[in-house]
């Protein structure tokens, strides 16, 4: 389906990542945002609250992030594309209702413009230390999708992708900007509405009596009925059967939770987006995401001058993790080098998948700034030895 022109500000613009993300959401058809102000994310909702009325969108500044996330899940159950926007402290408060979104299978997007943590940390400065929280922050077993843009242009493009994926798989999608990408200003080209492909809610065509909210029929993702359309359905955060009714049993748990995992894991190849460069024949492969991907490229250039064969993987999708690709490469290369603005989070996944077949070198940064490219160069040189 094509985008609604009302939400598309077609043309070439000079935008920061936060604004671009807001524009991406509106182009994707987002018409409800519940949020609570927090640096460095607030510009997203400031822009949207100004432009929203023109396209019939509603922004509510909720009383806190617990309420924001709950309202977003609620709004999505009316069939409206919904989003919330936050940063570290607010992201922590959203976790319980992100789990509710996952359990009820609710399409929605959660934007986290990451700053330095823990706690109040560095409100105005960059961090990438919420990437594990994005995956594991709510309790219990579930799978979701997380994306990481490296530029304002991608903040626009990938916000649309985030909405589309959330609709296809009926999951909350974590949109993990970092403060640098959120606050950097670059050229952003917004296509015409007719050139933007968006995924609408997959509404059931069954009549009310024949519809079961969690029946899948061979598909791994159930059809949707909107609240208020007369389906008289039940949905719950409790373990439930295909009617949505709570069933407190190990058998029902197995069926209910397993499908939440399978619907993402079985489709991981379709979901995962990686950008690869010079992988063939490489001895060392650098893996990075967000702003660190751009810094890593400089480190790679510096190290390449020393004659090292270096490949590069930019992770656009953080979760599900590109497990298969890392396993494939592990047998062929000497080492992975993983710079990230945290004390070593995604590198744990790389190490797990490398399974001892390639060395894994963490290049940590505590936050508040980006890596010195020389540090990345030195890590690559060290890994190539």
């Amino acid at each position, binding site marked *: 389906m094509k985008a609604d022109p009302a939400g598309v500000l077609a043309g070439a613009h000079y935008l920061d990542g936060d604004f671009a993300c807001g524009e991406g959401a509106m182009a994707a058809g987002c018409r409800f945002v519940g949020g609570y102000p927090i640096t460095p994310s607030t510009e997203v909702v400031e822009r949207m609250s100004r432009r929203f009325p023109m396209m019939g969108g509603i922004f*509510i500044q909720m*009383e806190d992030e617990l309420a924001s996330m*709950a309202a977003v899940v609620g709004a999505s159950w009316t069939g409206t594309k919904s989003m919330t926007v936050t940063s570290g402290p607010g992201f922590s408060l959203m976790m319980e209702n992100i789990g509710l979104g996952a359990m009820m299978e609710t399409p929605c997007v959660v934007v986290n413009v990451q700053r330095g943590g823990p706690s109040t940390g560095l409100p105005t400065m960059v961090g990438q230390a919420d990437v594990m929280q994005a995956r594991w922050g709510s309790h219990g077993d579930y799978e979701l999708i997380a994306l990481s843009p490296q530029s304002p242009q991608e903040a626009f493009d990938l916000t649309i992708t985030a909405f589309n994926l959330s609709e296809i798989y009926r999951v909350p999608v974590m949109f993990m900007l970092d403060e640098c990408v959120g606050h950097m200003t670059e050229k952003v080209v917004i296509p015409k509405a007719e050139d933007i492909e968006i995924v609408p809610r997959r509404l059931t065509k069954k009549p009310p009596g024949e519809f079961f909210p969690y029946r899948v029929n061979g598909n791994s993702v159930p059809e949707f009925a909107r609240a208020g359309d007369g*389906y008289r359905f*039940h949905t719950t955060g409790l373990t439930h059967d295909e009617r949505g009714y709570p069933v407190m049993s190990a058998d029902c748990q197995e069926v209910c939770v397993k499908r939440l995992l399978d619907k993402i894991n079985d489709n991981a190849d379709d979901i995962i987006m990686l950008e690869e460069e010079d992988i063939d024949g490489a001895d060392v492969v650098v893996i990075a995401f967000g702003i660190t991907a751009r810094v890593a490229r400089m480190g790679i250039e510096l190290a390449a001058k020393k004659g090292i064969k270096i490949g590069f993987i930019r992770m656009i999708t953080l979760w599900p993790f590109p497990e298969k690709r890392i396993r494939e490469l592990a047998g062929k290369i000497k080492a992975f080098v993983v710079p990230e603005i945290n004390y070593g989070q995604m590198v744990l996944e790389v190490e797990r998948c490398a399974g001892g077949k390639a060395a894994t070198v963490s290049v940590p940064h505590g936050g508040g700034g980006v890596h010195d490219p020389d540090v990345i160069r030195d890590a690559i040189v060290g890994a190539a030895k």
Partner: protein
Amino acid sequence: MEHHLLKYLREEILPTTHCPGCGCGQVLNAFVNAIDTLRIDPRGIISVTGIGCSSWIPSPYFKGDTLHTTHGRAIAFATGVKVIRPDSNVVVIAGDGDLAGIGGNHLIHAARRNVGLTVYLVNNYIYGMTGGQVSPTTPFGVVTSTTPYTNAEYPLKIAELVAAAGANYVARWTTYHIRKLIASMEEALQTKGFAFIEIVSQCPVAYGRRVGLRDGVAFMEYFKENSVSVRKSKTMSEEELEGKIVVGRLARRERVEFTESLRKIIEEQRTGTGA
């Protein structure tokens, strides 16, 4: 012959899980009576609940759209629903722990926004589902499982708080006043703007046994003897009102409902007539 109100319930999952003597069944009964009297099509009712025994009144038994959410967050969730489906009756039913404790902030702010929800807070003075812990409405001096040497906190007058926060309709009734409760539930359902009823109810199992009220009947007698009308309460001193349940309507206003204000702004901006 089938009972005429059974059509509002999901028969396939009855009976309910509530304990003998619990007030939740009375509240469910009153609720379906109210919508039956008003001839509201249950397909237009979206009920959103929190976590606790009281949240199980409609979830999953009431045959409308029923969304069973997280502890304390039903009102915030329902706000997201209501602003997009203003023509539906969005009803929140949950306990005192849920709405006045963990979710208290959402309750205050929803009343302040005057968003058009109908909220029935079932106040059984205790955390029922988790087995009888102290709640924000438990009276001073009562023994509960987490106040084994008596409660040192004072109870919240939750209905008065919601009235002060700006709700368009606020009332308090007990499960003893079942006809008045039904009439009040009807008024709440017909209110544009935030409507709130504190329904004082009984939990013989987790609360009653702590205060010598062992079954539903004992509670009915207690509610009957200890309730005073709003009108009468105005002539009584604070000391005289100690331990009394003030029943009746506490607020009625005509402030513009939140969604209506939002829609008006959208319309003005779209047509270029606004600020």
